[in-house]
């Protein structure tokens, strides 16, 4: 773990590097890790992830607009859910069921913070319930710190606004944004409204947002204008 932390801390390249998420997943006793950018706690964008379920976990939270990742971003606080099945029903109504269906039993979302400033979230999950071991939580926090430092270094470079263009820093949900633009033109509505159409279709049909977006882009799904 220390070697990975050192590599992240000493990274001085211009673009987002490929993060050692797969290696850390095992070291932290997890089944997946997701690295989400959310400057100021808003506009969470999944950049990199490991494990088979991380994409689906973030997708589901994006469809519903709720869950550990957005909560950690918004509150700038750790959200530790050692047992998804035991979450109070009014905390994230409608989320624990689909999470369990996916096979996700525990979720740990850590804010990436510098002082009082939130930059993003590191979300780990496990397919078995239970709290993280003491050492593993400490290591996760150290990883979150290293990632926050990495983001600050990348963003503080002059002309840093281009750092997301590099392939490795690509947005996992790029096609969702593309489908949003596609629908906005198709239905002649603002992008924000087009995204809501996309999300509500995914939600009502129990589909991933990414699959819904791909269906739109490949002309397999036509969303009608719902205005009279």
């Amino acid at each position: 773990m220390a070697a990975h932390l050192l590599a992240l801390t000493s990274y001085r390249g211009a673009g987002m590097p490929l993060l050692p998420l797969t290696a850390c997943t095992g070291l932290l006793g997890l089944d997946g890790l997701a690295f989400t950018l959310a400057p100021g706690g808003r506009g969470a964008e999944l950049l990199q992830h490991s494990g088979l379920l991380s994409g689906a976990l973030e997708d589901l939270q994006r469809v519903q607009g709720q869950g550990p990742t957005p909560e950690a971003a918004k509150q700038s606080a750790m959200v530790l859910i050692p047992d998804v099945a035991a979450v109070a029903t009014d905390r994230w109504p409608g989320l624990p069921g689909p999470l369990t269906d996916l096979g996700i039993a525990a979720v740990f979302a850590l804010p990436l913070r510098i002082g009082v400033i939130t930059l993003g979230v590191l979300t780990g999950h496990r397919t078995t319930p239970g709290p993280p071991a003491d050492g593993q939580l400490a290591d996760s926090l150290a990883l979150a710190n290293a990632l926050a430092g990495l983001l600050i270094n990348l963003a503080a470079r002059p002309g840093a606004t281009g750092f997301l263009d590099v392939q490795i820093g690509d947005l996992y949900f790029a096609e969702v944004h593309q489908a949003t633009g596609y629908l906005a033109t198709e239905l002649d509505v603002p992008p924000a409204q087009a995204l809501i159409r996309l999300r509500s279709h995914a939600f009502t049909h129990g589909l991933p947002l990414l699959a819904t977006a791909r269906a739109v882009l490949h002309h397999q799904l036509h969303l009608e204008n719902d205005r009279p």
Partner: protein
Amino acid sequence: MLDLSREERLAAAFVELADTLVKDFDVIAFLHQLTEHCVDLLDVRAAGVVLALPDGPVVDVAASDENTRRLELAGVEWDEGPCHDCYRSGTSVAEKRVDDALAQVRWPQFAPRARQAGFTSVVAAPLQLRGQVIGALNLFRDQVHPLAPAGLRLGQALADTATIGILQQWAVHEHLSVIAQLQQALDSRIIIEQAKGALSNRRQIGVDEAFRLMRRHARNRRAPLTAVAMQVLDGTAERTLLDPGTGTGTETSTST
């Protein structure tokens, strides 16, 4: 405040000076508070403070009253006086009289002006944290007896607390601009993705082809890609880009 004991006022002063992470933080008002606390809590007639960029020029001056503020401003202009010495050396200036021959040599312009303002002696403490000096606090007195050591220590403690507050505020401010950078990077990426989809729908082409067209259009017009993307989204982009069967699509392709 008058109803409170000195002990309570002291505690309140420290809390107030530490509490800079608030919205609408105003550094001048904050420095003014520091000087007012000094006059309230210490055996001094007036207090003044100069704030400077680390190893740089003086950026702000505040004082407990207007007369003293003008005196501090004059000291900055003349490059002399206890605040100046204290800020330059980064160490405190022990109580010095302003009405003796030594003062006349030390501060030829500042000393007479300070006497005119009704002061007999002055003490200065640096605003510094771990070697970083960001200004100095001046305490002006009109008493014959010297300032008690406890009073001097308290003055330095108030200055230290204020320094931490100011540096914290600066650090947060710096990070805020980093957040703005990150947000901008993200926004511009999302806008470009949305525009790919919008153009793909308009021209009934794939998103990769739409991206290629936008990039070429931006390069030919020497316009930022994000700006072109925004024009695609709000429909104000040139027809040659937006509409199928027009120029851009059939122009000689340049490798991207």
